[in-house]
């Protein structure tokens, strides 16, 4: 499942995938794969992404209709 919230939050802060990747210490490919839903990050990386984007875990990863 695509993570459009992450993409939107990143674009909202005018960050490229590379800039976000550098901020959290991963490769650009990893950010791309998280956004496209091809990789599930660890909780540690999720928290790092949230801190870098100034949002909460709920904002990025919670799906209301997922259940």
């Amino acid at each position, binding site marked *: 499942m695509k993570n459009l919230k992450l993409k939107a939050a990143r674009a909202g802060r005018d960050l490229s995938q590379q800039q976000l990747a550098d901020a959290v*210490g*991963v*490769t650009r*490919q*990893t950010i791309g*794969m998280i956004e496209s839903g091809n*990789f599930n*990050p*660890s909780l*540690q*990386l999720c928290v790092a992404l949230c801190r870098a984007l100034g949002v909460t875990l709920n904002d990025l990863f919670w799906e209301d209709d997922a259940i």
Partner: protein
Amino acid sequence: MKFFHSHMDERERMEMYTVEHYFFWVAFWGLLAAILVQDFILGAPFNQSAGEWVVFMVIAVGSCIGYARKGVYDGGISQPGVKSYLLYSGIGSLAFSILIGASMILRWQTPLHIAFGSGIVCFVFLFVLLFATMALLGAYIQNRRKKLEEKFEDEDESDS
């Protein structure tokens, strides 16, 4: 002081482990197949495949010890118990007995009834040996699981 700093992120590491996992099993079964073909079909002397046997046993025993220490039994297919010990001992000893019997017929032209009898004797001995090993390993794994549970138990839960 660290001389080499890893530039891998968690996804790359996970993908590397996945690749290693697949090729570990390819190497494991390939090595076993190579040993069996050499020893039982081509009739090579033991000293020719001794090195391969050593490597194979290091991998097999090392993996078993590693899994057992982490409380992992058989990749989650079953739980340690008599049923599982019977099944694995049965499969292992049956496969090896068939191999022994077949190689006796093919390599040494042993009469069928002698090869069959040897196969049965081999099966019984191996079955007992494997069952005992599995039972010991299973008991150790259950003990390890209990210890790991206690080690990481929530203090609030243990008080109540």
